[in-house]
């Protein structure tokens, strides 16, 4: 079933097409949701709500960009809506050491998606949202500031802290790797 047929089937509310759409994109979208959620259960809630929005609004898809990108944007927006409802502000204090990125690129390449995912999920919530939006989804600081209702300076500051936090985790993981050798 082509993407066009899938979309048309979903517009007709054809159950088989909806299931096919879910099977095609649910895996990737759940990975997206997990980056924004605090728990796996919360990620599944976001995935469910996001797909319901996709099915309800699929007729509004204008074919201007990729369909996957459109679905991903709905998932991210659904996750952000939950984030805004929770209005959390987590802050981490005490990581003031500067860490330099390791120079060995092969070491970085060896890092698995699961390891990277674990690190991103381990980010404190405020940092995590900004890092996900900026580094992975490609939002600008202005867009992040607008979406989260903060100023751009806060977004930049949160991103810097997130990078530092992740750097430390990456370095630590390499050290452990090195010791195993």
């Amino acid at each position, binding site marked *: 079933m082509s993407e066009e047929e899938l979309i048309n089937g979903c517009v007709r509310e054809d*159950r088989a097409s909806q299931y096919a759409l879910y099977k095609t994109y649910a895996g990737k979208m759940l990975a997206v949701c997990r980056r924004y959620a605090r728990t796996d259960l919360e990620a599944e809630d976001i995935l469910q709500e996001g797909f319901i929005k996709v099915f309800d609004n699929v007729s509004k898809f204008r074919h201007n960009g990729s369909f996957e990108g459109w679905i991903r944007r709905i998932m991210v927006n659904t996750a952000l809506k939950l984030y805004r409802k929770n209005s959390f502000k987590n802050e981490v204090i005490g990581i003031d050491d500067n860490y330099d990125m390791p120079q060995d690129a092969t070491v970085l390449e060896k890092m698995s998606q699961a390891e990277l*995912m674990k690190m*991103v999920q381990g980010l404190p919530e405020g940092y995590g949202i900004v890092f996900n939006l*900026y580094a992975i989804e490609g939002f600008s600081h202005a867009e992040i500031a607008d979406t989260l209702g903060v100023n751009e300076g806060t977004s930049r500051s949160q991103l810097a802290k997130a990078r530092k936090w992740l750097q430390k985790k990456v370095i630590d993981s390499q050290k452990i790797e090195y010791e195993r050798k």
Partner: protein
Amino acid sequence: MNENRHPIDDLFRDGLSQHSVEAPMHVWERIDQTRTPVYKLLNNFKQNSRWYLSVAAGLVLMSSAAIMFLVNEPQQGLAEGTLSNAPQIHTEKTPSAPGTAAFKTTNPEAEIANPANTSGPSGTDISGTESAGTETAGSGTTPSGRTNPTDPGSSTPSQYAGGLSTQFENPGTEEMGGEVAVPEYEKTAVGEGEIPETTDAGTEPTDPNTDPVSTPPTPTPGPAPDKKQVPTEPSDWALEVLGSYDFMSRRIENADPAYVSARKNAEKMGAAYTFQLRAQYRLNDAFALRSGVSFSQHHEKLNFTHTQSNTEIVERQETGYILDPINGPTPITYTVRDTVTTTTTTSAKSDNTYTFIDIPVLLNYTFYTSNKLNLGVSGGPVFNLAFKQKGQIIGPVNNEIIDLNSSANPFRTYAGVNLMLNLSASYELNKRFDLLFEPGLRYGMSSLTSKGFGVTQKYSSVNLFTGIRYRF
């Protein structure tokens, strides 16, 4: 957009942008359930439940009012109902001589009971109309056939003018002359076309004994009973509208006193109010039943800050040099242990809202009644129809914040049964309206949270109801 790309950004973007995990089937099953028309309908109802409930409450009230009106209708005509025990009298206004109002009265029983008043069809039906014979029986004649001169019925102008006048010795009418034997004292000097000097029979009865209302066994065709003059009994039904500012009290129980303390410190009671629309049915002078729809809402402010420190020892390898007296500086690798303390501060702020739609069923006992003031007590169960929550609360495990809009919401959708006890005072403003003041207590009997949550949360309130009662 990405003017400041950082190697970390690239690392995670490249690694995770196309990352995929296995999607669980139970999520699809949940999604699939939401696609059914029944679910959509229910969801639509759930989202607009307040609107639907308001419409339903309005319809119930309108229906109640209509029923009350219909039930009340015969009671208002209770005085008229006394006539129903009397022989059926049909009174209608008929056109008469100019400037006069005349009544044509039909009394079937009188037609049968007083045949003596007539001398047969030919003798009665003078004018050739059916009414003429009946008028003979009912128009102010006594059972013995006597005419009471003061009887308003006997003074009906048209009756005399139209036909009955021929029963009397009226020189002007010779049609029936001699056929009806009329005693001398029954003769009235009313000639055809003449109007007697008595007052208009259709308006003012002059003899109370002939009032058809007060003397049902011997009805006389007097004036039509004026509804406004008939005292109506007050209806047993009334409609009440009340509003209250509530003073809430909350009880939280959990095995961990620290959790209970955290909840108490973080969540403060805000404004609370209740509106009730009730119907009252008076069972007797002392007891009345009250029921209707109640809408309550109360607010709580959550302001929670929780700081948690986590200390971990991170080991790292460092390379350095030692000065070997023989070989000179020699590189060595050694382990450095860093103690890293991570302090996480979680803070949450929210304005929580709890909304209840209930049906109170109250029995009121009036123990003091004066001219205008009534005092009593009322009490009974309050059955919850719907219970909705918004906001966040602190969970019992690790003080996590629970969003009440998520599936983790621990509150039930049905708040169970509460008990209500009020002092009820009413002051009569006028014939229809009473002013109400009802201070009282509402006691929550069951926990609003589900059993699996492990926390018991109950509410009680002191209510200060004021309102208006409309008596039908």
